[in-house]
């Protein structure tokens, strides 16, 4: 993982801690629904807060299933 992706992961972890109360370690392999136990309200919150944090819009993304997918999606948008 590149250093940028590491920073993105840290940023997501910060958002998850602040807005979802997630206290564990955040690894790219974790699945949002199954492992982070996000219901629809929480996943909306995560989406919006991650967007605010990184100042990106993810609404053209499809199939973000894992934390790693989310990192990749944000990285793509930051490159634009």
């Amino acid at each position: 993982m590149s250093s940028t992706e590491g920073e993105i992961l840290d940023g997501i972890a910060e958002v998850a801690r602040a807005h979802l109360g997630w206290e564990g370690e955040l690894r790219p392999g974790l699945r949002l629904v199954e492992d982070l136990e996000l219901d629809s309200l929480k996943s909306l919150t995560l989406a919006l807060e991650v967007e605010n944090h990184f100042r990106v819009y993810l609404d053209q993304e499809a199939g973000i299933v894992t934390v790693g997918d989310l990192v990749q999606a944000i990285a793509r948008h930051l490159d634009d």
Partner: protein
Amino acid sequence: MTESSTLVGLLETAAESPECGLRFVDRHEEVRKFAWPEILLRARRVAGGLQEAGVVRGDRVALIYPTCPEFFDAFFGILLTGAAPVPLYPPVRLGRLDEYAGRTAAMLMAVNARMVLADARVRRLLGPALERARPELGCRTTATLPTAMPTPVRVEADDLALVQFSSGTIVDPKPVALSHRAVVAQTRCLNSFWPDGDGVVHSGASWLPLYHDMGLIGCVFPALERGAALTLIPPEVFVARPAVWLRTISRFGSTVSPAPNFAYGLCVDKIRDEEMEGVDLGSWRVALNGAEPVAPQVLRGFQKRFGRWGFRPEALTPVYGLSEATLAVTFSDINRLFTSRRFDRDALADSGRAVEDPSGIEIVSVGRPLPGFVLRIVDDEDHDLEQGRVGRVLVRGPSMMEGYLGRPLATAEALHDGWLNTGDLGFVAGGELYITSRCKDVLILRGRNHSPVEVEYAVNEVEGVRTGCAAAASYLPEGADGEVLIVFVEAAAETSEVRYPGIADVVARVVRAAAGLDPDYVEVLPPGTLPRTSSGKIRRLEALRQWLGGELAPPAPMTPLRLAGAVLRSSLAMARSRRSRGG
């Protein structure tokens, strides 16, 4: 001037009020405004394109948009062609899309949608759903419609105005078909509750999704009928930043703004004082609370917390309704503090009698029937029950659905001689309705309806679960802020009890993935434990009743974390409170 009896007529009349219209607040709280005449003009352009593409009166056209001006271009454009709009919800931005595709395809097929109109971004994600449903005229954005002058179509009061789903589901979607007559009658009833006067000109604010009956029928149509102002906030902005809702009300001096119970709780839990700087909620006269069971301590918590910012305690107005009646059925008095009474628990549970008891369970009144509506409380043989007896709630009135579209059997089950069987249980006391249990076929969680069938269907595939032997139910525990979800499953024969906790874990995960719901309890039971009807169907409400009474199995929480309090608060709220305690 004759009063319009169609939404098209209401739109044409609203277009005579150029000073008002719809405002759209975005996540940065920037505002775009569209006056009613402009909204009509934009809709006419879409109508011309739809007609050119082949849409005709009597068709159903689905529309899938977030909260944005284009929703209204599409919605009113469809109406102007004489077709019925079917608003469906856009995909969630994180997580799996296959579940969404299945659900959307099922809903498109259930209404036999001839075309789908969607936002450009949503459209890119619709492929799999469209592949399955294959709408005859395809999926278009308003920008890709042909350019053509609209041909005026005569729309009648009996034509379908709208098809809405009481709960989105793959397994058994029930499209509620509403005529213009019904929708307009409901809209006028709502507006009669907040007449302009005494120096107050009403205006609305809403973060409710536009594919939700309370958002579209409860907020947009009353503003349309009056040519009034309405400010709209995207629901995802509210969920992440509830303060935006209250700030918007203050900023525009909005007088009417509804929300389900959970939203009021979310505000109390999530909004920080500094986010409320300069906010004055004094303009907010009507804070409707409906769509899910009303928890008295949530109302009190909201009054107490936001009184500091001018919130009028009497503004909170518990209401009751259901999509099959278009929206509202009963309303509390607008200018009165909400009413709750305490009733003896055992008398309610055992003999279905409402006996007042100062130490009993507190239930909030949802008020009296709307003008023109009549309630009946009946027993299982359809005999009327007297005041204070718990029974099934039947309603008739001017805004009943035509039926479930293409589902004559389901319609016949719900509608008899104009009486709608709500499926809910309740009683009347002092002329007001008290609901004791919501419909057995709907799970109402976080303001949205879900079908228990969908949850049950999803857990069927879990290894160790006896096929077809699951039941999902939701209820409002005493003293809780919102409904909790419980899933009962029977283990497959010869499954060791040692495996039960593991099965429960998998069931919870599958439910989250399939329905986006986090079960508060999963109860794994030995085969044959769940109560059944003579024909072998599992009785959800009876299972819940037995479980609550400790007869089915001891109510045991899923994980120690839940034990800490998830039953009492939504898990989101809990995450917040843990965070604030941690500094």
